[in-house]
């Protein structure tokens, strides 16, 4: 009996000991998870101390690049070998490569992500910011995007917080990756914020924050569908000297960023227009070899396109005003077309200042279309 009692006591002691071990284990794991949770919600993932941002470097900073990558939408695509890609993740990966391979550049990358929740209730930050200088990642922060109207408030503030102040004139490049930025309206641009609007006016208002009154971006790269419309180019042209955009559909964020990886080699004597043409040609080649759909990449020299824009902007704006008043159902039936297909736009200046790299879709109604003017209009 004693034996039985002792065995029983031993068993209960062992169980008690086991419980204590388990309880301690749970507590430790709980602490670990709590720490992980708190760090996931922390404001900054600071990689280097502020003083290091301003430390001297053997590399002179000559280029400043700002990437805004919109990832709050449907960005899935497949290549012909059945590999699946998320376009914004690909753009982010390539932007980081550009940042790391340019020792003479500072690079700001803003990744706009979908809204997610922790434990179904607690909203998580929906933006992530990376700052590279001289090929090194100096800052990585999670942030809240604008909750109502999108004017790139955080993006502009972060730019001014970290940008390198230098007496030398930097070559400024702005890049936007995402779906077509609407010319009006823009509700639902973000899949996870259906009430938030974002359109080309919001984008250009935001961009004003990055540059001073007298300066402009040397190059703007708009990696979206239907970027080459008279309205979009006029708006972006007020803030940029050279623009690269696709007037028609652009297979999801597919501009080839390799030419940006070694700017010192590819931009010779500060010749941006030659670089822009080289960039456009490379993107066109990559797209043409990978997709069966229409490919159009255009370089706009903003000064030289002014006569055409001044001639057509009245008509184009009237069209936009008419479209704004239409119901969604009617609007959805109106397609885009080459401006050259509309008599009002068939002007002698239409080809001035544009370098067009075009190949029609391999199939579909327009497969025999040989040329594109570089300007996209509404078929209305």
């Amino acid at each position, binding site marked *: 009996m004693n034996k039985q009692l002792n065995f029983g006591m031993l068993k209960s002691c062992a169980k008690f000991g086991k419980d204590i071990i388990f309880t301690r284990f749970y507590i430790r794991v709980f602490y670990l*998870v709590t720490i992980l949770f708190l760090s996931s919600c922390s404001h900054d993932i600071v990689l280097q101390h502020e003083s290091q941002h301003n430390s001297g470097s053997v590399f002179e900073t000559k280029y400043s690049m700002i990437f805004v990558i919109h990832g709050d939408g*449907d960005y899935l695509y497949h290549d012909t070998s*059945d590999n699946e890609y998320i376009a914004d993740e690909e753009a982010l990966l390539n932007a980081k490569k550009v940042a790391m391979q340019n020792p003479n550049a500072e690079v700001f990358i803003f990744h706009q992500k979908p809204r*997610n*929740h922790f434990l179904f209730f607690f909203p998580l930050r929906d933006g992530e910011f990376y700052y590279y200088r001289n090929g090194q990642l100096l800052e990585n922060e999670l942030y809240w995007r604008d909750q109502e109207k999108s004017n790139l408030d955080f993006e502009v503030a972060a730019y001014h917080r970290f940008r390198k102040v230098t007496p030398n004139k930097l070559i400024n490049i702005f890049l936007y990756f995402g779906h077509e930025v609407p010319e009006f309206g823009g509700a639902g641009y973000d899949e996870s914020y259906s009430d938030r609007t974002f359109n080309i006016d919001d984008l250009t208002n935001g961009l004003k924050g990055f540059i001073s009154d007298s300066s402009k971006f040397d190059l703007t790269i708009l990696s979206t569908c239907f970027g080459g419309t008279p309205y979009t180019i006029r708006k972006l042209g007020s803030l940029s000297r050279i623009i690269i955009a696709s007037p028609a559909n652009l*297979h999801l964020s597919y501009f080839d960023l390799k030419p940006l990886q070694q700017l010192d080699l590819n931009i010779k004597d500060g010749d941006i227009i030659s670089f822009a043409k080289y960039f456009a040609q490379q993107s066109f080649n990559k797209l043409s070899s990978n997709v069966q759909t229409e490919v159009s990449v255009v370089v706009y020299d903003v000064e030289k396109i002014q006569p055409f824009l001044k001639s057509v902007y009245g008509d184009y704006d009237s069209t936009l005003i008419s479209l704004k008043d239409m119901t*969604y159902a009617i609007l959805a039936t109106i397609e885009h077309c080459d401006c050259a297909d509309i008599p009002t736009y068939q002007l002698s200046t239409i080809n001035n200042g544009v370098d067009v790299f075009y190949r029609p879709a391999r*199939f579909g109604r327009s497969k025999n279309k040989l040329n594109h003017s570089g300007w996209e209009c509404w078929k209305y």
Partner: protein
Amino acid sequence: MKQIIAFVSFLLMFVLVTPVNAGGKGELQKHFNNVANKVKATENATEKREILNDSFQDMSKALDKLQSTGMISAEDQVGIDGLKAALKENQDELAGINGYERVPDSQLNSFSNYVVQNMEQADSTVTISVVALVLIILLAVLLF
């Protein structure tokens, strides 16, 4: 054991974040991509045409069914109309009717890639809600 299950559940709840991005749009694209893979895996041109044609027809029927249920919003109706129109164009081109040249046998693989890429960048799929897209996939896959 119950303690462990409860704890693991708690832990999973704590660390898991709901993936919002895995919506119906991706599934719709995967559906067309699977069709393209089947086409490419088939040697016979007649079979390739059948696979493509059947997929267009099945998808169109699924869209019709969904529209007739009255379960979807007016905006989704518009988006679905756009998707149906795109499918009809593809179907016509495959058959060489309504002003199209028939897609040559040698280009059927490329045509299947075109269908996928066109769908991936189509405005109509961008404007259809996730719920409607999930319903489309369910109908297309389960009913046909």
